[in-house]
């Protein structure tokens, strides 16, 4: 029931938004919708952790001939991501409100439509329904980035569209193929997909199709080329939605589908996926060191961090998977925070180029403070959320292979280097001409930071709650692999 509300609520608000004209009202309605959604999800969490899980199931027959049903269910892996979605969406809306986007009704309507699709992806318990929401998320994402993006947006968003659409089409073929391998009567239910009988050769092909779809979304090297451009050209809110939530669809898919469905293929080809993920970490980190555009720098840092998450998943250990779940949430929060900071800096100085910004801390101490906390979370300082996730991930990778863990561990060092360097160059030193008029953040601008900082510290200091949420589900997935 709750799951149903979680999916329908943003859709209703989105439709409502499309019909509104008054800009102020639109923003209020959008925010109300997102906050209401968050409250419902918190209530769901309350039910989930105190009572039975039955409130969070939803199963409505849909296409009976094919045994497809609107089947939703949240477990310890999907719930953190559902919460992440409902937590970030209001913040993203809040931070977008200062921008005078033209056609605000469409902008906020599409954001809420995306939220619905995300929730659907994370809670679907039916392969076809998962696919439908997966694709559904792409269209609003494309339009947000393409309509409100920068100068080169047409070419770049098109690349993004083609990349992700092609990848997911192969996933569709894999899903239909799996469908015919499920025990009779065939069904798309995830349990049935897990029970599909596959020969090792078939598993390899299924692995390849799923991996392509997820690797493009995450993105794993060498499928990442759409990502930095798209982030740079997208409007701030769009980048946050992509980086904060949409990428997690890929890693979520790895855990939900790839691991339990093709364990044999993973034993055979998992090392290659691992190598690709780790290569991406190093590659993206080194490129990030050379970036002058703050948004691009964070985009490459995101490839590195997501690569680490993927590597932790391919380690196939419970530590690695738990770390992946925690880090998906942490990374989503931190990177959204970073993009909010960047958009605020851009608003003040009119540029995102690091070389043109300096000494903002003297004029905007609060901004510098929030920037620092989020940044520390992102580079994984102990007592912040990033630490918990990255520690567990590296632990998991270490259990898999010491050398790979050593290489993957470089991400923490390199991450600290490029992040702190960016901080030093933009925040510290003498203000440049043009930067000296920049004022500190207003109370309204500070509001999104407060929940973000709270979450960074909460997950960092008391990770137990989230780990406990994820643990049984992770165990289930690992048991399925044997």
């Amino acid at each position, binding site marked *: 029931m709750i799951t149903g509300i979680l999916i329908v609520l943003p859709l209703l608000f989105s439709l409502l938004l499309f019909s509104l004209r008054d800009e102020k009202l639109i923003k209020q309605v959008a925010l109300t919708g997102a906050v209401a959604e968050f409250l419902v999800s918190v209530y769901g969490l309350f039910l989930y952790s105190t009572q039975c899980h039955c409130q969070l199931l939803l199963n409505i027959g849909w296409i009976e001939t094919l045994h497809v049903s609107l089947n939703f269910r949240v477990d310890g892996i999907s719930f953190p991501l559902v919460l992440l979605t409902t937590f970030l969406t209001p913040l993203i809306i809040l931070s977008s409100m200062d921008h005078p986007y033209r056609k605000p009704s469409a902008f906020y309507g599409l954001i809420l439509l995306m939220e619905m699709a995300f929730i659907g992806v994370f809670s679907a318990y039916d392969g076809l329904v998962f696919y439908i929401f997966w*694709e559904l998320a792409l269209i609003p994402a494309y339009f947000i980035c*393409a309509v409100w993006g920068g100068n080169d947006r047409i070419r770049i968003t098109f690349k993004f*569209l*083609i990349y992700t*659409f*092609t990848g997911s089409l192969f996933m569709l*073929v894999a899903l*239909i193929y799996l469908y015919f391998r499920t025990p009779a009567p065939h069904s798309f239910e995830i349990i049935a997909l897990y029970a599909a009988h596959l020969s090792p050769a078939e598993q390899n092909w299924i692995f390849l199709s799923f991996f392509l779809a997820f690797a493009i979304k995450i993105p794993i090297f060498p499928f990442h080329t759409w990502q930095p451009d798209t982030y740079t050209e997208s409007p701030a809110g769009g980048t946050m939605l992509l980086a904060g939530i949409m990428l997690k669809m890929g890693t979520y898919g790895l855990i939900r589908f790839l691991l339990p469905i093709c364990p044999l293929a993973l034993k055979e080809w998992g090392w290659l996926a691992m190598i690709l993920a780790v290569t991406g970490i190093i590659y993206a980190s080194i490129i990030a060191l050379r970036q002058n555009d703050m948004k691009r720098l964070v985009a490459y840092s995101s490839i590195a961090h997501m690569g680490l998450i993927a590597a932790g998943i391919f380690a196939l250990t419970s530590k690695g998977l738990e770390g992946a779940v925690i880090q998906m949430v942490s990374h989503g929060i931190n990177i959204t925070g970073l993009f909010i900071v960047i958009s605020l800096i851009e608003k003040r100085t009119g540029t995102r180029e690091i070389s043109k910004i300096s000494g903002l801390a003297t004029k905007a101490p609060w901004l510098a403070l929030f920037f620092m906390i989020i940044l520390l979370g992102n580079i994984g300082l102990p007592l912040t959320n990033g630490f918990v996730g990255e520690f567990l991930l590296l632990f998991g990778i270490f259990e898999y292979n010491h050398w790979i863990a050593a290489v993957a561990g470089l991400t923490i060092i390199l991450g600290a280097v490029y992040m702190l360097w960016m901080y030093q160059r933009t925040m510290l030193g003498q203000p440049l001409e043009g930067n000296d008029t920049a004022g500190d953040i207003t109370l309204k601008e500070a509001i999104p930071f407060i929940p973000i900082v709270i979450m960074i510290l909460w997950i960092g200091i008391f990770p137990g709650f989230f780990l406990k949420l994820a643990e049984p589900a992770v165990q289930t997935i690992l048991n399925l692999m044997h």
Partner: protein
Amino acid sequence: MSTIISLSVLGVLILVEGLLGKKTWHLPTILVGLLVALALTLSGWNLNTHYYNEMLIVDNASVAFSAILIFTTFLIFMFAGHYYKSVQRPLDDIYAILIFALVGSVMMTSFGNLIILFLGIETLSIALYVLAGSHKEAITSNEATLKYFLMGSFLSGFLLFGIALIYGVSGSLNLDEISRYTVREAAHLSPMFRAGLFLLIIGLAFKIAIVPFHFWAPDVYEGTPTLLTAFMATVVKIASIVALFRLFNHGFSAIRETWETTLWILAVLTILVGNLTGIYQPNLKRMLAYSSISHSGYMMLAVLAFSARTADALLLYAAAYSVATVTAFGILILVRGAKGNDFFTSFEGLAKKNPVEAICLTIALLSLTGIPPLAGFMAKYYLFTTALEKGYLWLVILAVLGSAISVGYYFKPIVSMYLRNGDGIKLEAGFAYKTHIIFLTVLTVVLGLLPSVLINLL
């Protein structure tokens, strides 16, 4: 049977109205007449009878497909008032011929005899030759009709020759008889029969515009008046595919191995060539021509993967494709009316002043691309499922690849409308026209959300 009679009477009625000079009566008569014909068609549901020594067969499949064809024609006629608004001369001939073409296409969905198939195809084709040239003043229209007529009549010869060979070998034109013959002689099939089979494939492939017999289609589509192009791209296409479907799966199913590979290759070629060439088209009308070619490639999957569910899959696909294509043509007519052409540059900045039309065209194109949860996705998904069930893995993978390529052109008008700046003219769409487009869009969404309405029918 009642369908064919009622539609023929309707056509004659329009001509009589024309004689009496009652120009304003045409459209109301046609719309009501089509609804009556639709009702009569649906009354044949579950009857499972045949007429004239099994020449015409009325089973649920033929009822469903005839209904789709009539309904699509109805949807197209809803645009006719606007499209021919400024035309002064009497239109009874065009309307009547269009209805006669529909009669031909209905015959193609319910034939039980090769002669009826040929009659249907010819009734349809001859009507289309005239319709393609119905814009007498335009040189492109003249080119279209000449090209279509010369090639069409030539290829009709192939069709007839194929039928003659099959008749010569099997001794019958009746589909059931031929089927029994193939079962009996499957082991040592006469080469004459094979030759007849391939001539039939070529003839039908031309009518459907399957690669490599598709070269006429883009030119003819472009030159034909837009409203009639919509008819060609939907009704004609579906009728021909259904004819192919019936012919091969009722008549020749016992000798699958003789034609399976050929159709497989044709399907792959159609999907890949249709989609790849679609990318390079400069205007929406030609693009839709290539889109229709590639979609006939997808529909060939249903012909190949014959099982209990393929007729359902084809029905859903035909409905989804027709509705989306008719919507696209509806907007195309508006843009051509306002700008005089339909190059993608004409769509620039369209979304600003015409949000409704832009959204409707976007949804139609997304449906054609196969984006969930729209009708086009459900149809494609269902079709791919039936094909995979029969083991056509590579065919499905290539079809999926084609879908990925198709993003390259279906998004062109969308990009133009939303992302580029243009002069932002207002399209002149009346209330009824707009409502109709919205209705079509709602239909696309509803078919996607509730595909069970169609897929449990047959």
